[in-house]
């Protein structure tokens, strides 16, 4: 009996349940953390139950199964990717709020245990990169790109389903870890030897390895699918240099996925071999060498950064052009700049570990290579400004995100150049300055881009517009919340506060952590505004219908380009966009 149990549950015991320790240890700290963990687990279980009950009540199981879950249609798969991303986004934001709240009261104390805090920053990072950002952009590319090039579907629809399944499985694993056995505390980077069996025998790192590996495989396959689709399935007349910019960035992202994901597969695979088969790749003993893990991880990690940021670049290119009522400035230059960024992104990964002890000439070479990326990126920013120049700018919701992006992104670029300077990086590496920097790139860059795209293309997908008032509120909450939450982290980083620390002992940090905590609350408001926007839009969908008397539907800029390429005249509003 016990054999059977152990073969099913392995190392899982009763103590894997989040409230188990609370039952045995009644100290206030354990109680608080137990309540939080149990609440999170409860939300997962209740959320799943609620979804099941709702679908049963509506009698939609058959519909859900045959029309969505088994559908190879790229539009539906895209939407399902985005749904996963939004669910995971909500969870990761709540985790972020907990972390900021902890640090706001974390002057030598706080309410979270170090262990719990470790799980929070690990899941937050892992989710945001692998289960929010990647599915979100995969979903949007999935939906929009085939339409823009005039393809009926992706090249390999079944492969697309497989990708969705892999991502969903990984996301499910991260969710299950809330209920059964805690997640890893090794950070989203999972550096060994801390994540090796000898230092971390629990199931947490295994969760991390499996979730990340599934997501990686999914992204590799997605990348292949996208690249082949763009190369082989363009409609006649859709020459490469007529493709909309979003498709161009999708192509570059796909190439980065194809070549950037394998290093992570290697890194996590070897770590798994270390843990399961007693290999010694990254152990401290018997000739293992953890530096190679760091090297491999970032050989993935840096292309990954550009996987995340290129599609938003494309989205913003379309948004700026559309809402300035004007052609995009310097189309060819933007394309060339995108390709430069894509290739250069493979040459800079060492800047994530300047402090590891390599020679100055290696550090300097990679630092300079990093700055080279700043050149095409800077050109892009100016191209967007010149797109608005001499236009007629309408500040719709997607445009508000785009403006927030352009203003904040250049600041992030500046701190990026600072971090790319090895001599300065020795001071701010691993500090909150770094955390502020990459959030400064990813929130205004990736997240604003995705939200902008959602507002921009939602009518195309569902036939009605997203409500604008709550859209504006969400956008402004995002921008203000971002600034409040992350600008203080720059200061904290300059004062030498390490990232990932649950508490601190310097009273000078306190005002800044409190400010960041308030910012996190504003971001939480932004999340609520997004949900309200969705709810209000669905409620009033008939009033916002865009298909009244317009057979071509909502003409996005890409479609216009496509139709023009195909020599088709557009009626009404669409024609305005052509000029």
């Amino acid at each position: 009996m016990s054999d059977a149990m152990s073969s099913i549950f392995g190392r899982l015991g009763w103590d894997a349940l989040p409230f188990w320790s609370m039952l045995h240890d009644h100290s206030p700290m354990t109680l608080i953390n137990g309540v939080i963990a149990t609440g999170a687990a409860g939300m997962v279980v209740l959320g799943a139950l609620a979804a099941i009950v709702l679908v049963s009540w509506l009698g939609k199981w058959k519909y859900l199964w045959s029309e969505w879950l088994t559908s190879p249609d790229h539009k539906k798969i895209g939407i399902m990717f985005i749904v996963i991303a939004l669910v995971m986004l909500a969870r990761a934001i709540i985790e972020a709020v907990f972390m900021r709240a902890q640090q706001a009261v974390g002057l030598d104390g706080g309410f979270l245990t170090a262990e719990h805090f470790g799980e929070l920053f690990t899941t937050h990072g892992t989710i945001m990169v692998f289960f929010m950002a990647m599915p979100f952009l995969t979903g949007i590319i999935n939906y929009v790109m085939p339409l823009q090039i005039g393809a009926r579907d992706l090249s390999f629809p079944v492969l697309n389903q497989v990708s969705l399944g892999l991502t969903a499985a990984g996301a499910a694993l991260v969710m299950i870890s809330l209920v059964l056995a805690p997640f890893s505390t090794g950070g989203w980077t999972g550096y060994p030897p801390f994540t090796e069996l000898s230092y971390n025998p629990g199931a947490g790192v295994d969760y991390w390895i499996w979730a990340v590996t599934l997501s990686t495989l999914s992204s590799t396959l997605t990348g292949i699918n996208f690249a082949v689709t763009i190369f082989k399935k363009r409609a006649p007349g859709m020459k490469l240099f007529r493709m909309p910019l979003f498709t161009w960035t999708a192509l570059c992202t796909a190439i980065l996925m194809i070549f950037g994901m394998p290093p992570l597969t290697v890194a996590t695979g070897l770590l798994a071999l270390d843990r399961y088969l007693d290999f010694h790749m990254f152990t401290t003993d018997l000739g293992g060498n953890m530096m190679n893990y760091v090297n491999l991880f970032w050989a993935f990690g840096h292309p990954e950064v550009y996987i995340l940021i290129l599609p938003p670049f494309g989205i913003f290119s379309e948004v700026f052009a559309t809402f300035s009522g004007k052609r995009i400035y310097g189309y060819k230059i933007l394309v060339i700049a995108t390709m430069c960024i894509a290739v250069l992104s493979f040459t800079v990964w060492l800047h994530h570990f300047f402090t590891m002890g390599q020679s100055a000439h290696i550090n300097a070479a990679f630092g300079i290579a990093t700055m080279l990326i700043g050149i095409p990126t800077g050109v892009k920013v100016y191209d967007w400004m010149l797109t608005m120049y001499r236009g007629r700018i309408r500040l719709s919701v997607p445009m508000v995100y785009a403006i927030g992006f352009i203003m904040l992104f250049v600041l992030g670029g500046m701190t990026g150049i600072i971090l790319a300077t090895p001599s300065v990086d020795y001071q701010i590496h691993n500090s909150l300055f770094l955390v502020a920097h990459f959030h400064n790139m990813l929130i205004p860059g990736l997240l604003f881009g995705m939200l902008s795209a959602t507002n921009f293309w939602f009518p195309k997908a569902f036939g009605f517009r997203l409500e604008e008032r709550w859209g504006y509120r969400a956008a402004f909450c995002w921008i203000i919340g971002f600034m409040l939450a992350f600008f203080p982290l720059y200061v904290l980083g300059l004062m030498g506060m390490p990232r990932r620390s649950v508490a601190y002992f310097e009273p000078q940090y306190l005002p800044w952590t409190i400010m960041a905590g308030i910012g996190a609350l504003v971001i939480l408001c932004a999340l609520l505004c997004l949900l309200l926007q969705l709810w209000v839009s669905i409620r009033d969908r008939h009033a916002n219908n865009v298909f009244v008397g317009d057979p071509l539907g909502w003409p996005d800029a890409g479609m216009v380009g496509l139709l023009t390429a195909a020599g088709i005249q557009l009626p009404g509003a669409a024609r305005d966009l052509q000029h």
Partner: protein
Amino acid sequence: MSQNNVIPIEHNATQDAQKTRHPGLNLGPAHAHEEDTREEMVFGFWVFMMSDLIIFGLLFATYVTMLGGTAGGPGPSELFEMKSAFIETMLLLASSFTFGMASLALKYREDRTRLVFWLVVTLLLGVAFLFFELKDFHTMFDNGGVPSRSGYLSAFFSLVPLHGLHVTGACIWLVALLGQLAVYGLDAPVKTGILRLAILWHFLDIVWIGIFSLVYLGGLS
């Protein structure tokens, strides 16, 4: 949605259908229709192979960086045998050639007997390769060359058996294709399957060139 009304999707079927428009292996004039629809499949498989190549490349680089990590355990000169490495190399090279013969049989004659013959020969060579490789590993294990012994051996056992696993997968795929051939005959999916498997097979031979040159010959010299 709207795009279906306005966009002609399919490639022009007559447009150089007779020519081989896609690179690498291809079907011949007898397969005009498959030639036209198969292009994406084969190109997609090429891209996948290239992604896989990055994995192998990084494992090669890792292997080189771990050469010093023997931790007092056995090194390449104690573990490797020139003879078996040579036999494995020959088997794989021969199998690449026989698969080429199979491709030819498919391309020009559409000759099922000949095709099956060459495929079976290829399969036997592949299985023989796997047999010798496993025997090699067995000898290594007997001589203390287990992956848990040292970082160097871990690197070896993450590189070479991964190639072996690929060959195993390719052999299974080959058996599956033979089964499909028997049941469905030489229809379009089977043809593209054979083409893709051929790419995989030649690709694995290329990876083996790296392994025997770098791991075995480099270690024994």
